[in-house]
């Protein structure tokens, strides 16, 4: 029998590194003391893992665990496998089978628990659980492209997130995932930005826009009661790249919008989506929803962020068990409305470089927002061109699923980014636009590694650049 040629598995062998977990325990952080943030304890983890597995199985998970017919169709949709075609451990089905076989051994499809010790196999010790960690965190960006292409409706993305959630309960997680979860539990935002730093950065951006437009009438309001829009952002905007806040402020001002940021509950990102921890997901999302309620706003608007959009717009309401009372939308939808209603005027000849659009997995495939960004781009750019594949079939930027915060998996991530690099290069575009801060960093890594002559932009930047501000005939200096 002829054997298929295989290369050694690309799964990264990263050891469990609980150093920052130990420190968090020593410091007695409230989230650790109160059991919200779980830390690693050597001991009976396999038994706990199996117990959690059987208690958490839902009907849709059971379907995804049992319906796979191993047809292999999904392999071709995964950028890991496409870039390493001789490595079976990169296929979605192999990754899902690692949890599937544990399930089959220990729990049957009705969810009835079989005694876990009946059969050997499955994870034997913490080492095995750590290996599982390296698969579900390190070899999958949770982009759900395989899910979208499975004829049996198997949701491998869901299985991956589910497994991540079990490991998170045991503290068997990459260091980066622990650190970001810690910061979001402890400070309400994933970059541990203090209230003072938050407010001062907003004031700084307000002053920048005032200078740019030559008017003091512009404000970046915080906690304004009864504003129409509650604007929520990604902490990365505050900490490292606040230009997007200035762009938004300039556009809101020009559109005559009544808006506010909240003093608390402003982080729309949500590491619970990546770590699989629904409790964290609920906590962060609830902060946003309660801010809107407290300020009696009519709408929640989410700045450009893929996983934040998916979490706040869709899954957060479920995690938090919160009745959705307000329309919750991406700022790109808001921009589209301004353009259609004539609330802002734009001059597309200010954006003449060829620009292509990268659909974020969490926005297109998992968020159902597909044509709106294109409508906006066609109005503000002269040369918009699609990449192929696109829309719900687009390839991940490769930094999804929280991978940007897990340095140990970066070499594999950049290797399989070859697929993304080829796709970007084929467009011949000079700009790649995306409505996700995470994708910005993911794409920047790809561009740098593969030396592509491209720059990443976001929708707000292009709209801000094309914006015609009444009273100023000239184009405002585009320094922000």
């Amino acid at each position: 029998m002829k054997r298929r040629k295989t290369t050694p598995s690309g799964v990264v062998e990263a050891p469990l590194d609980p150093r920052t977990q130990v420190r968090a325990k020593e410091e007695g952080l409230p989230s650790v003391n109160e059991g919200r943030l779980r830390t690693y304890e050597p001991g009976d983890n396999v038994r706990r893992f199996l117990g959690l597995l059987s208690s958490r199985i839902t009907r849709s998970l059971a379907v995804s665990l049992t319906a796979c017919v191993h047809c292999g169709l999904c392999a071709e949709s995964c950028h890991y496998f496409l870039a390493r075609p001789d490595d079976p451990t990169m296929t979605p089905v192999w990754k899902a089978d690692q949890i599937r076989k544990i399930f089959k051994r220990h729990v049957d499809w009705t969810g009835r628990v079989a005694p876990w010790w009946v059969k050997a196999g499955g994870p034997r010790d913490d080492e095995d659980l750590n290996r599982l960690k390296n698969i579900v965190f390190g070899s999958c960006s949770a982009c759900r492209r395989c899910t979208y292409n499975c004829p049996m409706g198997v949701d491998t993305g869901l299985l991956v997130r589910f497994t991540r959630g079990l490991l998170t309960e045991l503290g068997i997680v990459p260091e980066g995932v622990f650190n970001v979860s810690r910061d979001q539990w402890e400070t309400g935002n994933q970059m541990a930005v203090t209230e003072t730093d938050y407010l001062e950065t907003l004031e700084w951006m307000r002053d920048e826009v005032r200078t740019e437009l030559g008017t003091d009438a512009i404000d970046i309001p915080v906690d304004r009661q009864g504003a129409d829009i509650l604007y929520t952002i990604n902490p990365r905007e505050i900490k490292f790249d606040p230009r997007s806040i200035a762009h938004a402020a300039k556009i809101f001002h020009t559109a005559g919008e009544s808006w506010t940021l909240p003093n608390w509950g402003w982080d729309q990102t949500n590491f619970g989506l990546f770590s699989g921890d629904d409790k964290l997901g609920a906590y962060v999302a609830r902060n946003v929803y309660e801010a809107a309620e407290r300020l009696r706003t009519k709408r929640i608007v989410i700045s450009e962020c893929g996983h934040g959009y998916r979490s706040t717009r869709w899954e957060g309401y479920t995690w938090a068990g919160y009745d959705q009372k307000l329309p919750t939308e991406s700022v790109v939808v808001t921009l589209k409305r301004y353009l259609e209603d004539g609330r802002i005027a734009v001059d597309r000849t200010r954006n003449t470089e060829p620009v292509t659009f990268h659909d974020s997995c969490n926005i297109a495939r998992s968020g159902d927002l597909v044509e709106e960004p294109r409508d906006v781009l066609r109005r503000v750019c002269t040369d918009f061109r699609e990449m192929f594949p696109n829309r719900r079939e687009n390839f991940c930027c490769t930094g999804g699923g929280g991978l940007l915060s897990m340095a140990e998996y970066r070499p594999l991530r950049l290797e399989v980014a070859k697929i993304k690099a080829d796709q970007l290069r084929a467009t011949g575009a000079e700009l790649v636009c995306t409505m996700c801060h995470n994708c910005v960093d993911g794409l920047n890594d790809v561009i740098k590694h593969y030396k592509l002559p491209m720059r990443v932009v976001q929708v707000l930047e292009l709209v801000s650049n094309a914006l015609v501000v009444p009273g100023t005939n000239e184009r405002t200096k585009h320094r922000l």
Partner: protein
Amino acid sequence: MAHIEIEGRRIEVNEEGFLAHPEEWTEETARLLAKAEEGLDGLTAEHWAVVKFIRDYYLEKNLAPMVRKMCQATGFPLMKIYDLFPSGPAKGACKVAGLPKPDGCV
């Protein structure tokens, strides 16, 4: 552990190109990191103003400064930071200043 080789020197870095042992940073390391990671041939006084501020802030607080603090301390406008360090404040300037990778989606 990954490393970069440059000008006959070997620098231990993590997989993201951030210094593996941030305490071992020297000005020479900064120059080499800037060349290897940011494609910069030599650092100007303006680069050094940013790098030294970040370095001091980190040694004092064990934390990467916000970009606002970088601008305040140096008097540079925001865009200047991007002009100086193509990969931006976090993956550019903080890396050259020998900080560990900042936490979060960056």
